[in-house]
């Protein structure tokens, strides 16, 4: 009887897990919006990078919208640019800025590859295109 009570206590004392099964699509949407925001912040700081980075920022926003559509969540296109999480290098060093964007795209590519690998069949093609798009962004930033 004490054993059973203890086991019961242990069960209820455990900290509730806020997200026991994180939605992989929700995480990818957040990641896409953060990548878009990083490119947009870079363009704001260095307008001469616009032609190079603007298509990348737009692609990430299109990815977020398409992911929201297939997951049935409200389209994030109306969401204002998220605050960039990665600190932009100060002092206007364009090379360092491009290197940080490249790293962010590489991390994003890995996340999308993992998501595609684990996805149900009906999401595989879209997630594969997003992974491939991020790989081409890495190439553009090389």
């Amino acid at each position: 009887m004490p054993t059973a009570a203890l086991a019961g206590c242990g069960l209820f004392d455990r900290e509730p897990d806020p997200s026991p099964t994180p939605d992989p699509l929700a995480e990818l949407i957040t990641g896409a919006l953060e990548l878009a925001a990083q490119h947009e912040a870079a363009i704001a700081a260095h307008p001469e990078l616009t032609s190079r980075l603007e298509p990348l920022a737009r692609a990430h926003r299109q990815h977020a919208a398409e992911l929201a559509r297939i997951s049935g969540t409200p389209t994030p296109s109306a969401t204002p640019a998220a605050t960039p999480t990665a600190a932009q290098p100060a002092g206007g060093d364009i090379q360092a800025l491009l290197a940080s964007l490249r790293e962010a795209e590489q991390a994003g590519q890995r996340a999308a590859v993992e998501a595609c690998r684990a996805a149900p069949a009906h999401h595989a093609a879209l997630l594969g295109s997003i992974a491939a798009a991020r790989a081409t962004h890495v190439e553009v930033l090389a």
Partner: protein
Amino acid sequence: MTGLAAALAAEHAAIFAYGPIGVRLDGAARREARAAEEAHRSRRDALVVLLSAEGASPPPAEPAYALPFPVTDRTSALRLAIHIEERTAAAWRAALPETTGDQRAQVLDGLIDCAVRATRWRRFAGVAPLTVPFPGRPD
């Protein structure tokens, strides 16, 4: 035809196309064409192994493939290289849903490689933008 067999057929066509592409290029672009052709041969070989292991009969290469437009100079060669990589990317992408696990990872690698090469060819050709939002997705 399954998606994997269609990807193999696309790889056969890509390998054929890099012949006429390569002879119209020089310097770095020619080296890129040679590397691309090698990469397509590796993907082809891996697909033949994969399909054979599954008991499917891999479609053989045709003796020749009709090119979508004549390749007469550097400009048309680069245009065909972009076209070939986009088409092969689409074939790989279409095979994703029918795969799982390591096989899906392999198919995704095929898609990613084609998409990256398409971007490189757009850079050689001076085409902007260098990227598309959804590589391999039908228009």
